[in-house]
């Protein structure tokens, strides 16, 4: 009886031992995997995800099954699948703008090919894609900022004239020329990377960065006075005083509008002038009067 009791006790001990060993192993392994996924799962800033990929890398990695169908259907061989030892999460698609940028196909074959929804199937218009944001990172080397005419990034931009515009300013170095510099607008930039690819420098001055890195964000409580005023139709703080100007007759000044306006002189009243029409006649008149 006692030995039987001992036996069950031993069995119980062995059972507990096995269970705790298994639980410990399980906890360690899953924790190790979790920690590894933290470091191996981050997305480097110099790589770009295909169109429709979530800007939240975690979200993308929960959906991407690493099948490579987007890579296969990319007609320009832009997309690549991350291999072992690449700095991109294993088996996930990405591209490097400097080598092959996204050509922004109108039918978006990569998104169509994605079976999992990791590339958002709701993306129907490629202009709505936000793969990243082009940023003119280095004004010191960009030759446009040196006063030279370049504008290559402006010219290759597929969202022409919207995503990159040219900004004219005074060239302080020469004192008499213009600086014609590119300016990126996040409202239109898709992050395709054609500008980075085309940049004539040895190392591109304009680069596509992940949106999270490229964009600032105004504090949620912050209000811009002029926008609020525009929305409300009037100043919300103190009413603007009426502007009054003492101007000659026929001249008006439109504040926040056309500015100084000189009304054309009424032709019918022209004859009423006491002076002669011709300046020469007026001079010849001398001091007769």
């Amino acid at each position: 009886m006692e030995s039987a009791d001992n036996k069950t006790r031993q069995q119980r001990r062995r059972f507990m031992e096995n269970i705790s060993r298994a639980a410990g192993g399980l906890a360690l392994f899953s924790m190790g995997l979790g920690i590894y996924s933290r470091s191996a799962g981050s997305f480097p800033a110099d790589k770009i995800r295909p169109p429709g990929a979530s800007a939240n890398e975690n979200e993308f990695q929960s959906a991407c099954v690493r099948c490579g169908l987007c890579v296969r259907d990319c007609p320009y061989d832009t997309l690549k699948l991350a291999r072992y030892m690449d700095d991109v999460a294993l088996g996930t698609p990405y591209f490097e703008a400097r080598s092959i940028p996204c050509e922004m196909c109108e039918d978006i074959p990569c998104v169509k090919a994605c079976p999992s929804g990791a590339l958002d199937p709701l993306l129907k218009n490629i202009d709505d894609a936000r793969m990243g944001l082009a940023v003119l990172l280095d004004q010191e080397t960009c030759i446009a900022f040196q006063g030279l005419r370049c504008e290559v990034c402006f010219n290759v931009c597929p969202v022409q004239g919207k995503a990159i515009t040219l900004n004219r300013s005074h060239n302080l170095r020469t004192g008499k020329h213009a600086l014609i510099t590119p300016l990126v607008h996040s409202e239109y930039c898709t992050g395709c990377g054609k500008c980075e690819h085309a940049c004539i420098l040895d190392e591109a001055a304009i680069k596509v960065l992940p949106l999270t890195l490229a964009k600032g964000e105004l504090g949620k409580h912050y209000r811009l006075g002029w926008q609020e005023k525009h929305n409300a139709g009037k100043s919300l703080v103190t009413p603007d005083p009426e502007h009054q100007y003492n101007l000659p007759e026929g001249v008006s000044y439109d504040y926040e509008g056309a500015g100084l306006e000189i009304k054309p002189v009424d032709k019918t009243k022209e004859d009423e002038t006491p002076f002669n029409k011709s300046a020469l006649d007026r001079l010849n008149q001398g001091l007769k009067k």
Partner: protein
Amino acid sequence: MSNIQTVNRKQNKKLKVEVGKSRLRSYKWLLLRRVTQLSILSVFLLGPLFGIWIIKGNMSSSVLFNTIHLTDPFVFLQTLAAGMMAENTLTIGAVTVAVLYFLLGGRVYCSWVCPINIVTDLADWLRRKLNIKSRLTLSRNNRNLILMAVLLAALFTGTLAWELINPVTLIQRELVFGMGLAWVFVLGIFILDLLISRRAWCGHLCPMGKFYSLLGEYSFIRVNAVQREHCNDCMDCYAVCPEPQVIKPALKGDAFSSPVILSGDCTNCGQCIDICAQDVFSLGPRFITKKSETSQSGVSS
């Protein structure tokens, strides 16, 4: 015991010759499996190498004839655990493949499809030929724990954490998309299986294998030992079987027990069928219990 076995093995070799179990027949299932494995891999490679796109993608998810989606249900399960509501195409693909393996035997994936099986089979064969003895015995429970850990990690990180290191999908992917450093993993698994522990990867560690084993627990096609009274205890089947623990209940059970190998761990590889000189084993439907019992009694009487 071991004496009897060696005697029996010698007899079996003679028997094989006498019965006329030709060389080809004793490699029947092995050849069929290799042909299947290599054909599947070749079909995947036809696209990237020759531009013939019968199937596109890789073994994680693919599309057949540009219409039929196929998705690995284990990868799909991980996306679910990571909290992703997948698109219908992925779900349908995963269900299609799951139903297929549910009927054929889950681990048919391991022995008839997965290219790593070629490596681990080679390691095991060399192990036998070179008479390499085990240094380390792993518990088959490890794969259960790893499977749980994989799903837990997906749940907690919200990503497919295991897919960052899964050597199976890594090797499959790099075979189709161009080989990078995946061969390091091939070599690693080969050395592990050859020198460190028998059938260590596929039989003890791989969580995919365990997943497919659970999927095929009730599969329709099974290996059976209907002719089990012909068994002469040579132990050949145990020596070649990647999951030897599954044989005993079917082969050595009492008269009322099913002669069908019911465990989901069985990979339906057919190596036992090939090796057996007595033709004890065969591949067939799961529900043959009654019929075989009568045929068996008919033979013995």
